[in-house]
């Protein structure tokens, strides 16, 4: 269960939001909406502990995330605007190395299965720089399938994806929620997923 109380965020002179409360329980997902510049990404970065809130507190399973530190980071997966995908490496190398940096091992078969599932069959040994923007995005999203995490924080996960990939990702999130996971995401599209809450910034 992720809860946040009294969050506020200040960027430069501007106060983006203040006194924000939210709670996401197992099997639930939160759709963060708002215009460009409303502070959606800033909120997600605060929830992911990438930046500290100006005021307020984020708690995971009742404990402040600043105290939990590593335990929280292990339970959480954040995928942001940036690719976090190395252009020089192949999709397969990207997946396995990302897993190793997290201190876990990922066998090749599992990584391959995840890439195939994201429609990258036959591209697993091609350097990522030869892939299209949508395919790069798919490489990144394949991490969702291989990294075990209870809480997914996804910033605009549907950017650059085609209709098929959007379906696939929705299915993946649905399965994650059905298995008791949680998700927080920003998107300008409406999403037909159960147990959703909407947060308007």
């Amino acid at each position, binding site marked *: 269960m992720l809860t946040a109380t009294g969050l506020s965020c200040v960027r430069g002179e501007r106060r983006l939001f203040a006194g924000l409360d939210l709670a996401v329980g197992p099997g639930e997902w939160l759709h963060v909406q708002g215009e460009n510049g409303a502070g959606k990404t800033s909120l997600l970065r605060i929830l992911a502990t990438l930046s500290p809130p100006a005021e307020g507190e984020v708690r995971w399973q009742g404990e402040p995330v600043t105290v939990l530190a590593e335990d929280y980071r292990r339970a959480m997966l*954040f995928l942001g605007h940036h690719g976090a995908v190395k252009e020089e490496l192949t999709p397969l190398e990207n997946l396995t190395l990302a897993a190793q940096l*997290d201190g876990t091992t990922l066998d090749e078969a599992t990584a391959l299965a995840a890439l195939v599932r994201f429609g990258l069959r036959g591209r697993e040994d091609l350097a990522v720089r030869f892939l299209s923007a949508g395919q790069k995005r798919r490489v990144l999203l394949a991490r969702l399938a291989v990294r075990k995490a209870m809480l997914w924080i996804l910033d605009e996960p549907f950017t650059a994806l085609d209709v098929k990939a959007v379906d696939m990702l929705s299915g993946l999130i649905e*399965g994650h929620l059905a298995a008791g996971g949680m998700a927080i995401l920003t998107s300008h599209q409406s999403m037909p997923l159960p147990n959703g809450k909407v947060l308007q910034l």
Partner: protein
Amino acid sequence: MNKETRRAAPSVSLPPGGRTERSEGFGGGAILAIIRRDLLLAMRRKSEVLTALFFFIIVASLFPLGIGPESDLLRTIAPGIIWVAALLATMLGLARLFAPDHADGTLEQMLLSPTPLGLLVTGKIAAHWITTGLPLVLLAPVLGIQFDLDVGALGVLVVALLLGTPLLSLIGAIGAALTLGVRGGGVLVSLLVLPLYVPALIFGAGAVESHVSGLGAGGHLSLLAALLALAVFFAPWAATAALRIALE
């Protein structure tokens, strides 16, 4: 239809919620993984590594050509020139240390990884030394021949560089982390880091000079080793703190 079956395929099990089991000893595996990753990246971008190396070779080779065949003079200035060339060659690679990972968001993922950032930074510094420092150490004896250094002096030069180049990578990492995301960071990192390189330069070049003059290189090498020991403890910590600030 095909898509549906693929989605239902149980090949990748979905997270049941809960903690990922950790397979290896704490952190050690992650350090090796990031060294391997950075070396792999360096192999795919050979030109960047080779640029620094050729720079080192050319700078160190221009001096004997410019000064002419006066072996006494060359022998006197050799340690200083080789060390200055090594300093500048290391500087060239510093921009590469964190900037690409920052630009594509990998650094954010490292910060969020369950592995402590300090370990990953240590691994990155080690990989930086393997790609820029180690080749310099291996090339230095060949370049030293141009300056008419004898075998003993070449040996001291190699030992001094072996102790000194990791020091350059460690100190440089602090500068690279501090200037991350700053416009004109390349110039700023030189201004920040070069003054900090002065002790390494003095003791490194001094070791060879005192060996040539018959005083023995032991004292200089010990001081260099002491500086390295200090830097191994503090530089990754300082670089990690600087990275956290840059990423906020």
